């Protein structure tokens, strides 16, 4: 299964970016092969509006089943939901640590947005 972790950097030792839509990097991690790929999310980081929606769309193109992040707003939640992607909020520490927590079931699947949107 492929999961995405929002990250401040390109590798697994980078800190988790607590923002979903405006995360610097999106790390796509394959739990079967332990391979990862970093997607630059700079375009959405600087977006005037709709960063969460666009990041969600970006992720959906990579065949991802779950997102691990700090916080998720209402529009990103709705878009990820439409894409059939599960959301796990409250991740912190490094990307590897967040992945470990996810694998051991310590992260809880979100049943709604946990923060307000930053744009209306």
């Amino acid at each position, binding site marked *: 299964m492929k999961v995405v972790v929002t990250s401040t950097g390109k590798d697994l030792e980078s800190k988790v970016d607590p923002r979903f839509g405006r995360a610097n990097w999106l790390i796509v991690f394959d739990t079967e092969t332990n391979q990862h790929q970093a997607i630059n999310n700079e375009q959405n980081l600087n977006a005037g*509006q709709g960063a969460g*929606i666009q990041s969600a*769309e970006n992720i959906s193109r990579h065949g991802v089943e779950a997102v691990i992040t700090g916080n998720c707003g209402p529009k990103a939640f*709705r878009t990820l939901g*439409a894409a*059939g992607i599960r959301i796990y909020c409250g991740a912190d520490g490094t990307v590897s640590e967040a992945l470990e927590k996810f694998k051991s079931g310590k992260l809880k699947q979100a049943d709604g947005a946990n923060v307000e949107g930053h*744009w*209306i």
Partner: protein
Amino acid sequence: MTQKLTIAVASGKGGTGKTTVSASLACIAADAGYKTAYLDCDVEEPNGHLFLKPIIQYRHMVGIPVPVVDHEKCTACGSCGEICQYSAIVCINKNVLTFDKMCHGCGGCSLVCPVGAITENSRNIGVVETGTAGKVAFYHGKLNVGEAFSPPLVKAVRSAIQDDDLAIIDASPGTSCPVIAAVKGVDFVLLVTEPTPFGVNDLEIAADMVKKLCLPYAVVINRHIPGYTLARDFCRAKGIRILAEIPDDRRVAEAYSKGMLPHSAVPGYRELFEGLLNAVMKEARQ
């Protein structure tokens, strides 16, 4: 007497006196016999009514078109999401989602939809109120609370201008989209500033904006203090005309706090604003 002319009163910084200047000019013009309209285009926080005290006669809702997707017809091709610059419509996993509050109402999605699955619905963003304030025709827009997108409402207020009006537009502060919507295509822009470093800094930004829009403009310095020449020096250095200097006067502030305009409360100000109106009209006709 009629004089077809549209003058916008703008500023970079907020609180420099746009409403005092624009409402005063409207009253003075009407008193001089011109068919005058005052349009408060600061739709996020209109305040001209506090001074002009209009009797409101009409009220009409203003909306912007937002997409409605017929999911039966939709083939999930994604064209709508690709053209939308605001992420207001997105096609994901064979679903088309719309986010009405992010839509700018351009209609692009319905145009590019190859199967005609997108129609438009109106989303209300505010109201235009029309009335009279003495001899002045009064118009203002009131944006709904929580609404972030005001230019269509600003344009709706401006559309009330009649062909033979001497129209005075009270713009919002700053230099962003609502201000552009208020000043674009007017005959003349009057930039109101105060002689503080903040005022002059924002005046420069506002002057750059009107230059970019190729509009003729000049400056009014409000709350002028003798010997404090920051704004005057700036205008001189840039070759910008100063049409009036309104003194920093406690009596004007006291009148303001009671909802009164300077010309009706403090001796000498009627003449000052008459001079300003004449200067603006002279400049604008050139």
